[in-house]
């Protein structure tokens, strides 16, 4: 314990306290997930602790639960639609924000942020009402486009921050070699932006897959997304089937983490 040496008791106690809280918080972050994973292998049909035995039946039950599987597929579709729309709409917008030579680039960046700053439920209610007035009823498509609008800012911000750190000399070199703007975009800028787009894609997909606040007002009556289905399941049953869903999600989250850390690095996530 070398750094205790030569320090005043107040300092040791003070920093010790800060570090103790830090360790407590880190345990608090991870412990519930570990407990849920343990529960998901329990043989008993109601939630108790400690578990009585080991079984995979809850995982089997998840995939035999028709509504749950359908909800998962719906959310998968929403997640993918949101991701594709965010790439198609967001990447060019980021280019315009950073490379544009028109008045109002800042205004454009702020404009894109606005729907993200508004609480999700307010956006959900607004889209539901506006849709009803023009005859668009809630559906998986209304849900997808609403979540896209809500989360687009994340894609734009991720690509924007990467774009601002790119060396402009690379694009100038391409122009000097007589590449057309499109060629330079395709062969120089775009490959360099790929990691940021991939990271943005992970976050927009997760939002599309998991969003409840916007989805609860805009989802189709028959196409219930996973969060809506899960909320009902958690509220009205106590079987460990939700724990098994958690187990599946944790595995997916680890996969997503690996993708993000390999594409832009974990430490770049919130820039």
């Amino acid at each position, binding site marked *: 314990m070398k750094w205790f040496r030569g320090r005043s008791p107040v300092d040791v106690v003070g920093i010790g306290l800060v570090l103790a809280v830090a360790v407590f918080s880190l345990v608090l972050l991870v412990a519930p997930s570990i407990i849920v994973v343990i529960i998901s292998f329990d043989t008993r049909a109601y939630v108790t602790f400690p578990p009585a035995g080991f079984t995979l039946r809850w995982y089997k039950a998840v995939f035999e639960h028709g509504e749950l599987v359908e909800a998962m597929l719906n959310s998968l579709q929403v997640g993918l639609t949101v991701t594709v729309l965010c790439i198609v709409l967001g990447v060019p917008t980021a280019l315009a924000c950073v490379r544009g030579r028109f008045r109002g680039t800042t205004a454009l960046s702020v404009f894109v942020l606005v729907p993200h700053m508004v609480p999700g439920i307010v956006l959900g209610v607004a889209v539901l*009402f506006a849709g009803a007035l023009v005859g668009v009823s809630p559906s998986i498509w209304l849900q997808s486009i609403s979540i896209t609008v809500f989360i687009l800012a994340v894609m734009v911000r991720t690509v924007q921050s990467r774009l601002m750190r790119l060396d402009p000399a690379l694009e100038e070199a391409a122009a000097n070699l007589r590449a057309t703007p499109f060629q330079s*975009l395709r062969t120089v800028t775009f490959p360099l932006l790929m990691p940021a787009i991939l990271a943005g894609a992970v976050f927009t997909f997760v939002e599309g897959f998991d969003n409840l606040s916007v989805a609860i007002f805009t989802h189709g009556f028959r196409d219930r997304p996973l969060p809506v289905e899960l909320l009902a399941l958690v509220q009205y049953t106590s079987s460990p089937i939700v724990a098994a869903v958690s187990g599946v999600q*944790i595995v997916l989250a680890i996969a997503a983490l690996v993708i993000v850390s390999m594409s832009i690095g974990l*430490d770049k996530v919130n820039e």
Partner: protein
Amino acid sequence: MAEAAIHRRITPPGFGEQVADALLSGRGIWPAVPAIVVLTVVAVIPFAILLSLGFSDFEMSRGAIISQTFSFSHLTNALTDPLYWITFQRSMNLALSTTALCLLFGYPVAYLFLTGGPWTKRLILVLTIAPLLTSGIVRTYAWLVILGGRGVLNSALLQAGLIDQALRIMNTHWAVLIGMVQIHLPVMILPLIAVMSRHDSRLVEASENLGASRIGTLRTVILPLSVPGIGTGSALVFTLTYTTFVVPQILGGGNYLNAATMIYEQVVFSLEWSKGSVSSLILMVTCLMVLVAIALLTNHFTKWTKGHDA
């Protein structure tokens, strides 16, 4: 590679590329136009409609508004209804206390990140980012398992002989608060880490070389410099917690009415458009007021540090 580049240069561009060039070389607003159109149709116009519904009396027939007159009546009805005050106050209290507790528990983690080695940093990043990639409902369910009557906490305390009968934590304010803090903790930690890792590490070294204790350095150097991170983290946590319904619904036992649950009931169950619009607008405006307050405070304390620099 070089040959390919030369080849590409001498190939005349196709029509598609010519159009793309025209759009890109102007460095104009064109690439952003699709996004602007979508945001206008799916966000700006709906907000305008929400606003008009909240501030008017209207008659509907077959899903269309047939007459609409400007009116403050829905707003005044809401503001004189004690249920609104109680509900919004409850949401506000819950959100503010969650934000404060997240800061209290999150800040030390960010400090550990700043002072820790590469493996500590990596561990902290994994533990804070991973939860954000899993569903909030699933993470709330974990607290159902822990705090329930026959849950982990009660089993442990009973077995240890610390209590004689199971504690009733579920469906109380405490269950909601615990769940809210744990679920939103990563949202507070990430901005703190982002701001702290931009610090010039020589400032901390200089402070310690000048004989400041670690606590002294934390208080006089690290804390003032991390004010922008505290601001961003608090704003994010507040917005999320003020407008959530997952945790209150699940851990509050369904009868814990907060602003979000009230709006949901007005809009989805009782189909009261005017009430739903007004409640949404009140939610948005009150949320914005707190965000402005947070921004002003952040600005004030940031200026204070800048003054010390000079």
